């Protein structure tokens, strides 16, 4: 049933596939990010309570959603790498971690810049903010652990283990605004209910979310290609590639 998938476990195939996909993904991500952000910054009405400060939403929500989406992707890859020991998947765990870390940092910084004018403080130790900060530490932990062993394989395995265990933080982040009394507001977009945000503000937001998703794939392509070269540098196909 999954036989069509087998060639994609071969590093050489993945290297060339990523090389072909990357320019398209990067171009699409840049276009969508520009479109969504310019639309959100200049062509939507201000919020009736928050004025123009709410425009930070067009970076805050996409980066926050994708900081969790990237973590899910990394954790699934880590699980596959631990159970079935597919090499390319193992390398992609380490390739994707810095992307998630940057997304999480963006979510935190834009959140602080939004919190200062609206809540009157840059930071509070509230459940949503704290669990998102822990997510940043989980990403940094995966990056640090993978480099902490002299043997690359051992480091990758331990980092994958941390990535899988850290999944417990995702539902905590998601439900933190419902479980605890937080300063952070509840969700404006959910899968099951009608969004509590006006359509004129929703569309640019959805475009920016898509842009962050595609940008993650584009950056993963670049980083995974480097990881494949580093790990396969003694193979004939890499030597042929670097020779000329």
């Amino acid at each position: 049933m999954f036989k069509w998938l087998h060639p994609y476990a071969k590093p050489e195939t993945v290297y060339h596939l990523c090389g072909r996909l990357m320019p398209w993904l990067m171009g699409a991500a840049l276009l969508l990010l520009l479109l969504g952000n310019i639309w959100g910054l200049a062509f939507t009405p201000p919020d009736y309570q928050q004025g123009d400060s709410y425009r930070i939403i067009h970076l805050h929500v996409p980066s926050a959603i994708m900081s969790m989406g990237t973590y899910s992707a990394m954790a699934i890859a880590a699980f596959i790498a631990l159970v079935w020991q597919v090499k390319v998947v193992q390398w992609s765990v380490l390739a994707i971690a810095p992307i998630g870390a940057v997304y999480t940092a963006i979510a935190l910084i834009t959140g602080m810049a939004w919190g200062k004018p609206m809540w009157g403080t840059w930071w509070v130790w509230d459940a949503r903010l704290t669990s998102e900060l822990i997510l940043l530490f989980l990403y940094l932990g995966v990056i640090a652990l993978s480099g902490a062993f002299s043997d690359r394989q051992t480091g990758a395995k331990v980092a994958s283990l941390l990535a899988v265990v850290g999944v417990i933080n995702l539902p905590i982040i998601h439900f933190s605004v419902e479980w605890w009394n937080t300063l952070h507001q509840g969700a404006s977009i959910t899968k099951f209910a009608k969004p509590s945000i006006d359509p004129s503000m929703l569309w640019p937001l959805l475009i920016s979310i898509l842009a962050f998703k595609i940008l993650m794939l584009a950056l993963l392509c670049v980083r995974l290609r480097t990881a494949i070269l580093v790990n396969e540098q003694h193979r004939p196909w890499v030597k042929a590639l670097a020779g000329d």
Partner: protein
Amino acid sequence: MHFQSWAEFWAMGGYGLFVWLSFGSSYVMLAALAWYSHYQHKQFKRQLSAKLAREKRIKQYQEQAQ
């Protein structure tokens, strides 16, 4: 277009500092990550070609010496 002038756009209804701080720092971080990922890829390729060329030269020299 919601704003009447560029000055109004940059002011963001008095929230300019916070809005542009968010957008500025986010773009800088994303650009840095993209640039560094490309740089790492290019750098490793360069190092690998240099290493292979060096190995080739050593091999040629050893063959000459025999």
